[in-house]
């Protein structure tokens, strides 16, 4: 499974998308994220499964039947 890794430098900062890891479980994803992206002493680090990341789209309402 693919996981996205998010980090925050210090409290009050915005979250950064640090990258991704491939892992067979959530538990492994946490370890891999730490091992791969520990170049800073992050204030926060978290992982999200790609399948759980929902894109939010802005789409025009269909004109049919609206008027």
């Amino acid at each position, binding site marked *: 499974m693919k996981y996205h890794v998010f980090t925050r430098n210090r409290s009050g900062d915005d979250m950064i998308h640090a*990258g*991704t890891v*491939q892992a067979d479980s959530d538990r492994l994803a946490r370890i891999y994220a730490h091992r*791969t*992206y520990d*170049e800073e002493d992050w204030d926060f680090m978290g992982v999200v499964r790609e399948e759980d990341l929902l894109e939010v789209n802005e789409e025009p309402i269909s004109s049919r039947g609206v008027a």
Partner: protein
Amino acid sequence: MIEDVSEMTEGYKKALKATLKVSADTELMSAPAYYEMSMNAPTLDSRASCISVIQDELGHGHIAYRLLEDLGEDREELIYEREPHEFRNTYGFDQHLETFAELVSAHGMFDRAGMVLLSDIEANTSYAPWKRALRKVGKEEQFHLRHGETWMRRLVNNSEKTKQRVQDAVDWMFPMGIEWFGMPDGKKHNTDQLDYRIKGKTNDELRQEWMSHTVPLANELDLDVPAHFDDEAEEYVLEYDMPVAFDADNKEWRFDEPIGWDDVLDRWRSRGPANEKYVNMLQSGKLEVKV
């Protein structure tokens, strides 16, 4: 700046992928190239430093393959399913490193070449995700350079014998670093990387940049390299006609045997002596699990 694949033309995407592939494969293949001598490092402290360098290189490879994945490539396939000759890493990491002097000289000179290339991309690339990812890479490569240069200095000052070992390493690594940056600007026909602003500097500019670090280092350490700064031309000049033939078995450059760039490209394409071994090392675990 370009953030997403949807903003790219086909030409841009193709040029970006090709550049990323060379970068990813080069980072990854430096790990097996550094492996043998790191596991045979002379002291516990140097063993720790050398393994740390390998960890960084694997991490840098990871970053570049992840970026390729975002462009639609399959990372598993790229790492575990390609044939050795399909890897696009620099020829330098197809070589066996056989002494600790060669290992630390590679940290000092080959990683400098990587650093020069990636610093240019970090500063000038139009592909924003790569630019962001390179910040970490630059910080870590700084340490590799420091490690390599510190050890080169230690060995040069230690004894005539260890100094000679460093000189022997530099003798074949310096011209390989020169070749690393590719064809001279005047001979190069494909300028996609620059046209699409995937990188900012030309091959010759990058080569100059590399020499501006490695030639003064060699001078300071009293090591001979076939290049010097020319006051009149205000640039570094080579003391041989690039490119020249390379005897891969003996790691010797035949400076009196000029060749064409087509010959260099052929040599690169047929890969160097350690190519198969290194790729097999990296792929062995995967194969075993699949059985």
